């Protein structure tokens, strides 16, 4: 409702419906989306509209602000103005390069402008924060940072310190905040800072589909991908012990006559026999738009062997100690990755296509290296036991009353869903909590 997400309510297990008025209408699927949906369904694989933070219609700037900020007229006015200024998608330009009309959600273009309008926000850029400082009372007093432009050490004082530096960097700041009181790093009396690092299980397959060759010119920019997707579906088979791994994955897929890029006609020798010259130009026209790409995104179970710690020797150019990482997948993640490979090849073959490569049946080879899906979460996990976790359910560190963590570091598990929206929801919840306690003068 705040950021603007399209999608549909399907009532599927572990794919909860959104409250009324929350989702925007999903965009029309492409030809390749529809072919994938048709053939995957024949294999018993559900295909539903994806959820993506792109405005397929303008936000409800009249009703929503009052629902989000009841009783706060200033916040309602600022949010209403900002929501009105965001434009619905114009179905052009790649989202990943930024969206000048702000139809595509980015925190920098969607949250920061109204926050700045409040007059209560200063943004300090080029600041390499490396340490949370403590007052004599043991409470966080601010942060030390190096000004990137001058190289000078500086301090910012604060009543409440909130770390949201991305999971690993937050861990790094905590571990580098050593004092006599906290020799193992700040908020680390449990010894759990850096532990239970997780990424998403990833594996991909691409293929080529003759049915999609030489289609007439079509504008298939659409919402720049993810019109449809596959939620995890094999709950019953898993419960019956047929899969050999725990937890599930979703499938993201892409295809269509997308904006030609560097790779559009690259590496197609497997189809062309190495053509060059006029034949290559014909081949490029023939195959353009006929490729499909499948990415599996699965749940990793946290384990004791996947963690980061401060490297005793290596420092960055500012002299700040860096992290080193330890990683181990279990048979569950490897099993998932191998299952993804088989499934994606099955779908491509059901489309009458052929995969670029045969499926990788060895899960250890099929799985993308830890960290490469860049969904790093964990490292300062939330929990109910101060001995076994770093923060409580309000993202507040157990050890330091006025120190909060609002990035993915607090994740105690990493469901197959991409983490951004959960990070945002937890941050919002923590912010409400902080505000309430500040009003009560508890912080």
């Amino acid at each position, binding site marked *: 409702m705040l950021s603007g997400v399209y999608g549909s309510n399907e009532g599927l297990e572990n794919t909860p419906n959104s409250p009324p008025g929350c989702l925007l209408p999903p965009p029309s699927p492409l030809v390749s989306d529809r072919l994938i949906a048709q053939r995957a369904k024949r294999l018993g694989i559900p295909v539903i509209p994806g959820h993506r933070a792109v405005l397929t219609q303008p936000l409800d700037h009249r009703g929503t602000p009052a629902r989000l900020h009841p009783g706060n007229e200033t916040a309602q006015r600022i949010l209403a103005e900002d929501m009105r200024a965001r434009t619905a998608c114009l179905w*052009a330009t790649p989202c990943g390069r930024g969206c000048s009309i702000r139809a595509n959600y980015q925190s920098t273009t969607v949250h920061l402008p109204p926050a700045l309008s409040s007059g209560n926000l200063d943004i300090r850029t080029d600041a390499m924060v490396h340490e949370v400082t403590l007052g004599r009372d043991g409470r966080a007093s601010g942060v030390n940072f190096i000004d990137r432009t001058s190289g000078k050490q500086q301090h910012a004082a604060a009543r409440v310190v909130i770390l949201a530096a991305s999971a690993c960097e937050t861990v790094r700041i905590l571990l580098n905040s050593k004092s006599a009181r906290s020799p193992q790093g700040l908020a680390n009396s449990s010894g759990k800072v850096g532990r239970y690092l997780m990424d998403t299980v990833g594996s991909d397959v691409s293929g080529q589909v003759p049915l999609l060759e030489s289609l*007439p010119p079509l504008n298939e920019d659409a919402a720049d991908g993810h019109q449809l997707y596959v939620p995890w579906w094999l709950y019953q088979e898993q419960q019956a012990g047929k899969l050999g791994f725990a937890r599930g994955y979703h499938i993201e897929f892409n295809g269509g006559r997308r904006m030609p890029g560097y790779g559009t006609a690259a*590496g197609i020798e497997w189809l062309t026999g190495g*053509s060059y010259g006029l034949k290559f130009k014909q081949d490029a026209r023939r195959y353009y738009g006929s490729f499909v790409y499948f990415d599996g995104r699965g749940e990793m179970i946290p384990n004791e062997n996947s963690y980061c710690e401060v490297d005793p020797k290596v420092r960055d150019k500012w002299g700040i100690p860096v992290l080193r990482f330890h990683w181990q997948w279990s048979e569950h993640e490897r099993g998932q990755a191998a299952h993804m490979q088989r499934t994606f090849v099955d779908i491509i073959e059901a489309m009458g296509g052929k995969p670029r490569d045969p499926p990788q049946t060895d899960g250890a080879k099929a799985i993308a290296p830890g960290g490469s899906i860049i969904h790093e979460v964990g490292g300062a996990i939330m929990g109910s036991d101060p001995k076994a976790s770093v923060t409580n359910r309000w993202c507040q560190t157990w050890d330091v009353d006025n120190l909060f963590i609002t990035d993915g570091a607090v994740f105690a598990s990493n469901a197959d869903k991409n983490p951004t929206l959960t990070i945002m929801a937890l941050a919002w919840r923590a912010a409400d909590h902080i505000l309430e306690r500040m009003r009560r003068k508890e912080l």
Partner: protein
Amino acid sequence: MDRRTTLKWVLAAGAAWPLRGNGAARAGSPLAAHGYGTDPDLLKNYRAGELWPLTLTPAQRRLAGILSDLIIPADEHSPSASAVGVVEFIDEWVSAPYPTHRRDRTVVLDGFKWLDAEAGIRFGKQFANLDAGGQAGICDDVCDASRAAPARLDAAHFFALYRDLTAGGFYTTPAGRKDLNYIGNVPLASFEGPPPALLKALGLS
């Protein structure tokens, strides 16, 4: 050189791939940039060669253009690769300091040397000075790595990379996009999806 001698040379060996590791260092101008630090200012238009020194000599640029146009010649749909700036694109690509680009630089410069060496063995000339048939004869032997002779595998990998670079440079230009009948990236009031008649024809209604 008579035809029999030429054939004998071709059958005997073919040109050896330049020595791994130091081929590139000898071939082009030295790479001055060390590391790459932070990104350039993306809001600024840099002149060619302003961010990092360009690599290709005039002779290499001539060879680059000939090879790019063997891969993407002009036809009734679009101009040739070199006519839309692909040589400049490739020079920029192999000059950039990023790891992928440094690797590609070695392959491309070694590949250029191999082409001239192979042309010398077969015809006693540089590749750029061969007639169309001579150039095609060499390209035919390396255009598909899965069919190339083991001794020409490095050359075949070079050719594949060079074809990807040429296609990457070409199909990202307005002329290249038009050639593929790409009609997107125009603002639309609404996105209606594929036309019903097409969906019907594909059995997707």
